[in-house]
């Protein structure tokens, strides 16, 4: 280690030993947004992934376009833990603005890479971490003339250096560069050159690799690395969405961008080159959901993607869709509320707002994806569900899931799968119906499951037309203000919601031991990875928790059974008001005392440590009582 460590301008000796860790650590990059660091940092993450190691990268970015601090955190975990982990082992500190905080966040024994072209501020020198100076600006000044190039390649160079320090196979990097610049081959050589500059500088000047490093493994199998929003967009293509109304809002915009990207490639009419979908960038979220309602009413699978403020604006229309029974699909990529809140931070805090959106007695179906694979599946499935149930279905993703890459099971599609269009009467069926002397009633509960038959406009010259409205109507869709008709209809909607329980995805259970434990923990969406890690950590401490990952609302029988079987069920969520917990209590008539809350809502993805600590605290308190 002779060549590493010493910061040129300090003589203080390091007090604590360097952390050593193979394939278990967190690297954080501190950059300025708008400087092109994102793709370099991604390259680093993907390289580790290609070394066969589970990773989970997280972007931490401001609500701003250029000039403010932005971070990229990569956890490497050969144990396969994909949640965020607090504490930084290696900090790549490229932003003078945030340097003080960045230095402070490094774990004792950790490393800090910095641009040593300028000397570091003495006050920022800790003697319990190792400083690794790379003269990045110098190298770039020497190598590049163009200012933008200097800025961009600086990032590539530190990735090269990291590769040397962490023992990443250089050919993995070159492979990545070739993949990335397919079609723009001219860019391959300069990028590889920049990587080499860093790689060689590090190898020459430091004793590589560090005590923290990568060792090749074969732990990722056929897994893929993708963000949830891209997966949702792709899922919508596979799910057969054709009409899209949307309005830009972080962090949901990339759902639509992904849909369009894939659809532009995969949804072209071979004969004419015309497109087999229609995306309308609406004037606002109200119009966006209106477009979706219109499309769905008219028989096209239709969806939108938005975030909290959009969900709030869509309230009136969602109530219409509930009451008029229109199968709309909405992907809500949640961010930290209330109001504008922290628009580039994550939270699971639109849960109740979505479930009960709109005035009057309304309830909506929600799906809770935890991985990109589930974003894909649930978005595709949402169309089947919505059409089967003739009601809005919302996929409750969040910024963490949607905008960060996640290691995920690969996508799969069963080519034999038919789209479930639900109960739609064709012209032939309408004729048959009247041949049998029956009258079509749009809101007749023929099958006693609360779901009625619909028809599409234009389906038949003189049968099956009806009037859709948000006001009360009888089974034949005729306007009525009769109280009994109204109640019958409202009760049918509850019946339908009961039916929904059989259609929505079941929860996933993880028993702590062979037999059920007395204690359980319920979690959903992006709290899954951290909670599952926490279950392991608690087990090490002798506390056995059975886990249940809830995947949908309304809650089906399995959720009820799980709660019934456990004396105490912790509910882990990333919001302040324990929103899903309140739904569990209300919809399943559970005693609140049985469901202690475990909450984290500071906008950062929840960690296993936070969950453990919280649960331990509550258990000790209980014992103390």
């Amino acid at each position, binding site marked *: 280690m002779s060549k590493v460590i010493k910061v040129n301008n300090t003589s203080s000796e390091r007090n604590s030993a360097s952390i050593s860790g193979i394939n278990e650590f967190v690297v954080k990059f501190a950059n300025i947004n708008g400087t092109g660091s994102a793709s370099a940092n991604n390259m680093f993450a993907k390289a580790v992934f290609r070394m066969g190691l589970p990773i989970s990268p997280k972007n931490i970015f401001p609500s701003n376009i250029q000039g403010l601090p932005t971070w990229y955190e990569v956890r490497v975990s050969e144990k396969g833990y994909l949640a965020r982990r607090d504490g930084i082992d290696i900090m790549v500190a490229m932003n003078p603005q945030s340097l003080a905080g960045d230095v402070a966040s490094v774990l004792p024994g950790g490393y800090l890479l910095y641009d040593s072209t300028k000397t570091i501020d003495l006050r920022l020198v800790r003697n319990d971490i190792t400083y690794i100076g790379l003269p990045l600006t110098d190298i770039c000044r020497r190598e590049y003339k163009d200012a933008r190039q200097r800025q961009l390649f600086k990032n590539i160079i530190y990735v090269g250096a990291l590769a040397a320090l962490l023992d990443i196979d250089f050919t993995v990097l070159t492979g990545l560069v070739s993949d990335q610049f397919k079609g723009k081959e001219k860019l391959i050589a300069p990028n590889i050159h920049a990587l080499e500059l860093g790689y060689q500088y590090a190898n020459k000047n430091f004793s590589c690799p560090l005590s923290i490093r990568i060792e090749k493994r074969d732990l990722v199998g056929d897994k893929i690395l993708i963000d949830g929003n891209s997966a949702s967009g792709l899922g919508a293509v*596979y799910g057969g969405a054709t009409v899209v109304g949307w309005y830009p809002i972080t962090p949901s915009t990339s759902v639509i961008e992904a849909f369009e990207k894939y659809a532009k490639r995969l949804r072209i009419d071979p004969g004419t080159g015309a497109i087999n979908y229609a995306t309308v960038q609406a004037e606002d979220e109200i119009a966006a959901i209106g477009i979706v309602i*219109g499309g769905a009413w008219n028989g096209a699978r239709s969806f939108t993607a938005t975030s909290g403020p959009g969900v709030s604006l869509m309230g009136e229309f969602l109530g219409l869709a509930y009451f008029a029974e229109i199968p709309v699909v909405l992907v809500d990529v949640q961010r930290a509320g209330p109001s504008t809140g922290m628009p580039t931070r994550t939270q699971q805090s639109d849960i109740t707002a979505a479930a009960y959106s709109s005035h009057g007695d309304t309830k909506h179906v929600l799906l809770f994806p935890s991985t990109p694979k589930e974003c894909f599946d649930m978005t595709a499935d949402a169309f089947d569900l919505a059409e089967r149930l003739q009601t809005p279905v919302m996929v409750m993703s969040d910024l963490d899931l949607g905008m960060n890459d996640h290691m995920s099971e690969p996508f799969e599609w069963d080519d034999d799968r038919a789209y479930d269009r639900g109960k739609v009467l064709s012209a032939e069926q309408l004729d048959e119906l009247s041949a049998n002397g029956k009258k079509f009633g749009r809101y007749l509960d023929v099958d006693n499951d609360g779901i009625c038959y619909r028809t599409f406009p234009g389906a038949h*010259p003189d049968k099956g037309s009806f*009037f859709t409205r948000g006001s009360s109507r009888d089974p034949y869709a005729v306007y009525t203000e009769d109280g009994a008709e109204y109640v019958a209809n409202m009760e049918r909607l509850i019946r339908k919601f009961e039916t929904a329980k059989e259609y929505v995805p079941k929860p996933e259970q993880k028993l702590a031991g062979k037999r059920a434990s007395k204690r359980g923990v319920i979690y959903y969406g992006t709290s899954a990875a951290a909670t599952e890690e926490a279950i392991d950590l608690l087990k090490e401490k002798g506390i056995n928790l059975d886990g249940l990952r809830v995947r949908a609302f309304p809650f089906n029988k399995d959720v009820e059974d799980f709660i019934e079987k456990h004396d105490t069920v912790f509910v882990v969520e990333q919001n302040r008001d324990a929103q899903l917990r309140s739904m569990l209590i209300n919809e399943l008539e559970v005693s609140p005392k049985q469901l202690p809350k475990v909450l984290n809502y500071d906008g950062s993805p929840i960690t296993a440590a936070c969950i453990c600590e919280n649960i331990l605290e509550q258990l000790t308190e209980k014992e103390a009582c």
Partner: protein
Amino acid sequence: MTYQKPNFRHPLAPTNNLGLSRREYEGALSTLCAGCGHDSISNAIITACFENSIEPHKVAKLSGIGCSSKTPTYFLGNSHGFNTVHGRMPSVTTGANMANRDLTYIGVSGDGDSASIGLGQFAHVVRRNLNMLYIVENNGCYGLTKGQNSATTDLGSISKSGNANKFSPIDLCNLSMQLGATFVARSFSGDKDQLVPLIKAAMSHRGFAFIDVISPCVTFNNNPGSKKSYDFVREHQEATSNIDFVPMQQEITTQYDAGTTQEVTLHDGSVIHLHKPIDGFDIHNPRTAMRAMKDHQERDEILTGLLYVDTDPVDLHDVINTNSKPLNSLTKEELCPGNKTLQSINESLR
């Protein structure tokens, strides 16, 4: 409450090219106030569709909320209808049209519905040149909520309670023209001769067709001093020209006087005849129309008739180049790229 009319057709009732009688274009019995202008507009729509032999099930009727927005229940009982929420019919129609470009879309709205809560949606559906007929049944007040002034209430118009309106009105024709509407007309619910051919022409127009129909509210805004009363409109109306509509493929039988008649051929081959146009009025130039409207407005006159038409419009489907086959009719095979493609996508993500 809606009373379904008895389903009885007089054996001698005249039929159209499709063999349908006018009755088959009617809807439920109206529940509007007796004498309400909106009912006359429903009638004009019925007549236009009947005479033009429109297949009722190929029409979709959409509306917002208001007395005007109730009317789709009262015409075309064999068409699907959608009474959406207040001010948001344009977006729902946009989605519907994207889903199935083969239907004819009639959107009905009120002045409250379109010029107040719905102004944003109105402006943007115009901008997108959605292929639809958009009718505002303009009574210069909020009928269903009992007569408040709306954003189209004319300056100085006296309300039933006796107050003069102090805000200048939004002229939806002018606005839509400025925003690029491709067919713009104004009419009067009491002028069936003008309104029926306008509706026919608008339904043949392949793009956004807007008709602002002044439609007096007998209950709340038909009093002396109101500028949307029957009397006021009758006295202050001037037409850009008289209008006749000849649908596509129908032979022109009437003789027209070449000097005073202009022929406008629409995209689908149907023809509008404009007789005795007012001086200097060019139906193809939105600027002259806007000027004429302002001129009339300054004289407290109401210019009605066809104001502007672009005979070669580019509708939203054209702009985004959608498949000519309705999107709602595409099969799974056409929509779903399949597992093989998906596996190659997976491959690119490793």
